[in-house]
């Protein structure tokens, strides 16, 4: 995986890196169980502060995206199977953000629906996999 940050952007480096890793996991560029570079490696590779990389890893771990095994390193976590209240909240707020954006872009409901379904089709394999994984016996 090829990591990239723009230190001179107005978006903090840790936000850029975190979003990039989450997206890479969601799109399958990083696969479950894959080892992440160490904090040291990634900091030197990108020439950024190791504390920044450590902060990203801590937050990703808290969100269940990666798992750290002491002495072994960090790995892409298995996808969480527990879709509970907290996850429902996260999903709702993400959807709400989408609605707000749509409103501000003057997109009407029909157009939004159309685009949403279109986007969903391209993501179907990834999202469908999640459903299958959650079924007992798999």
């Amino acid at each position, binding site marked *: 995986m090829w990591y990239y940050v723009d230190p*001179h952007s107005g978006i903090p480096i840790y936000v850029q890196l975190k979003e990039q890793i989450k997206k890479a996991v969601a799109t399958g560029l990083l696969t479950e169980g894959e080892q992440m570079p160490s904090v040291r490696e990634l900091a030197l590779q990108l020439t950024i502060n190791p504390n920044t990389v450590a902060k990203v890893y801590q937050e990703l771990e808290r969100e269940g995206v990666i798992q750290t095994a002491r002495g072994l390193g960090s790995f892409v976590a298995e996808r969480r199977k527990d879709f509970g209240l907290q996850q429902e909240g996260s999903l709702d707020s993400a959807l709400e953000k989408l609605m707000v954006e749509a409103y501000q872009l003057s997109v009407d409901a029909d157009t939004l629906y159309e685009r949403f379904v279109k986007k969903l089709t391209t993501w179907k394999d990834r999202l469908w996999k999640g459903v299958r994984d959650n079924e007992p016996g798999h």
Partner: protein
Amino acid sequence: MNLAIEFENLSKNFGEKKAVDNLSLQVPEGSIFGFLGPNGAGKTTTVKMMLGLLRPDGGRGRVLNRDIGRESEAIRSKVGYVAEVQEMYRYMTVQEIISFCKPFYPHWNDLLVKKYLDFFQLPAREKIKSLSKGMKTQLALILGMAPEPELLVLDEPTSGLDTINRQEFLRIILEEIAVQGKTVFLSSHLLHDVERVADQVAILNQGKLIDIRPIDNLKTSVKKIRVVFQKDVPEELFSQPGIQSYTREENAYLLSVEDNLQEILNSLKKYPYFVLDIINQNLEEIFIEKVRRDQE
């Protein structure tokens, strides 16, 4: 949180001029602290007081838990210092200055010195005055890192280097100092370098501290908002906390926001608008605006 550096109301006057004016700041251990300011802001004076090379006229300071007044010798033996390169003895050869510096420190890593002499291809028998500006900077870095310091203090270290060498220089500091959990104090007016590696930043102007916080916090809270309303809105809307200043043209406003971004957005959205954009600010933009506002 352990502190590598702690200043309390540190002051220094040169005649009538207040070079450093009641400066208080804390540098956490293991951080890379970017100390920013325009030329003449008092950065070098601060660095020299930190190392006991200048006596403060007021206030107190501790570096690595030692008093900068009474224990400056102990501080200097534990701190690596990369000054502006012109201060090195010009008549010595590279090897001579290394042998000259070594006895001042309780630790000296010969392997590290050799590693980076080779890496930078610095000629050991060459006199310092015949080295290029970039080579002098590289030599100063080696001398600063050789004592394996708990704290590396750099004062405008990269001014003599081109872009590629500057990034290499930063990478070496990360590898040899920051990754080991040691502290870096980077005083510079080169914002690009600081923006890349610092986790904390302080901005000094005319001897006074005008801001100090984690760089992530700075970039998350300092924004501009461009908003175009559909009709007139009450002016009180722009007097809420967090809005530093704004300019107006008809129903279009450009706001400079320092804090409370979410609350401000929520209150703006209560009025019908055509456009509402949040404009991110990088370190250079934040720096210029803060210094300019301070000078007004």
